[in-house]
């Protein structure tokens, strides 16, 4: 359903993405792993055009776009069908938890306030934040903020949900509550892309692992293939350092 072809992107003189190809099938739970600075997050941001590749194409079901001729309608169509969960949460600081989840439904999807509220309350229940619905972001912990971010992403009923290192900026004791919610989301059958450093977690919840290295996809396969029989020395080295660290 989602196909990225030959994505290239550079910041100044550093080539971040060097011709990435990736295709995702409906219902896939894909974890993207790899050393820092290899463009995992950037790749995820290319999908909803938060990062702007210099070349490459994206196909999302029947929406096709060449990044060299990005057009607003296609970008918007893709954005409406994806939802992103950010490393820094990016919960709207001027709104309460409930308003954060409701606002996109009202503003972008033009749902009635009542309907939006109903959906929002259901999603907040799902991530266990019903009691915090009238709190402002400044009153919440990192874990609660990230669960708000996830509820906001779920509420728009996306076809694909993009998790960008959702636990990387959390205090260690808060990681668990967020991983539990993510696991609940991915097991519900929604197509998911997850950039993460939590190797064990990635192995448990994914049906596919993508290893990115130096701006390209260096390995792609089932968790068993990637983790238990690494195809390259660099992958083996990376897995060893990550797993021994954990």
């Amino acid at each position: 359903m989602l196909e990225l072809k030959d994505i290239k992107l550079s910041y100044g003189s550093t080539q971040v993405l060097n011709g990435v190809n990736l295709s995702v099938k409906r219902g896939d739970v894909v974890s993207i792993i790899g050393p820092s600075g290899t463009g995992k997050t950037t790749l995820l941001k290319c999908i909803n055009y938060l990062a702007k590749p210099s070349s490459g194409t994206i196909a999302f079901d029947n929406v096709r776009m060449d990044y060299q001729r990005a057009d607003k309608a296609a970008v918007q169509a893709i954005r409406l069908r994806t939802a992103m969960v950010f490393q820094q949460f990016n919960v709207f600081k001027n709104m309460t938890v409930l308003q954060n989840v409701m606002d996109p439904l009202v503003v972008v999807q033009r749902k009635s306030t009542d309907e939006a509220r109903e959906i929002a309350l259901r999603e907040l229940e799902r991530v266990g934040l019903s009691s915090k619905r009238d709190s402002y972001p400044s009153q919440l912990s990192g874990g609660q903020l990230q669960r708000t971010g996830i509820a906001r992403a779920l509420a728009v009923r996306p076809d694909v949900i993009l998790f960008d290192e959702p636990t990387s900026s959390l205090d260690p004791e808060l990681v668990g509550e967020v991983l539990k919610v993510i696991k609940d989301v991915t097991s519900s059958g929604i197509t998911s892309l997850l950039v993460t450093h939590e190797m064990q977690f990635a192995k448990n919840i994914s049906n596919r692992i993508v290893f990115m290295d130096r701006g390209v996809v260096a390995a792609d396969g089932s968790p068993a293939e990637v983790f238990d029989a690494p195809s390259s020395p660099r992958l083996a080295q990376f897995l060893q350092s990550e797993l021994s660290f954990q």
Partner: protein
Amino acid sequence: MDVSAMIPELLSALPLTLAITFTALIAGFCLALIATTLRVRRVPVISHLVDLYVSYARSVPVVLQLFVAFYGLPLLVALFGSEDFFSPTIAAMVGLSFYHGGYLSEVMRPAYLAVDRGQHDAADSLGYTFRQKITRVVGPQAVHFALPGYGNSIIYLIHNVALVMYIGAADVMATAHLIMERDYNQYQFETYLVLAVIYSLMCLVAWLIVRFFELRSPMQAPEATTTTPIKNELIASV
């Protein structure tokens, strides 16, 4: 002397002072909004011209800006043919609007830039249009950052309205001068003390209004520990 005798006379000029203030507040706000938009969107050439305007408003003494408006406007008006509507009051309004707009733009721009990049990303990824993003997410947060600086800019505007008498507008200050001359310049110090009180009260009211909005801002929740990421200019503007 009986100071209370001059107060009603001074206050009779207050409407004009307030009219100049409010005109400059509103027109300056619009100018600042336009200037800030052009500057943050980095429109080529135009954004440089706007930068030049902002540095004019900030580095040239306000009294000189008033004189430029007073002598420059007739020239501009003559270009468009009509010469009837010009008056010192109009020049004061125009001059102070440009001053306030440039000053306020330097409050708005840092406030806009202080809004976390991630807030833009989140709104974009959810499919907000630029307008929706600005009105619902980025704008309200920028307002929160800008409020203290905005309060200052209003106070300095009120201070600078005291200068319009030099181009001949009949405001509170000019009236005070008339009173002093009539009283053979006996009570000048006292008169200026009364003026000081009048202007202080105006500033106090402005400050209380802005403070009210600051305290109502949802981002100022009780447990918020983050400090405002922008520095407010501490020093007056003349």
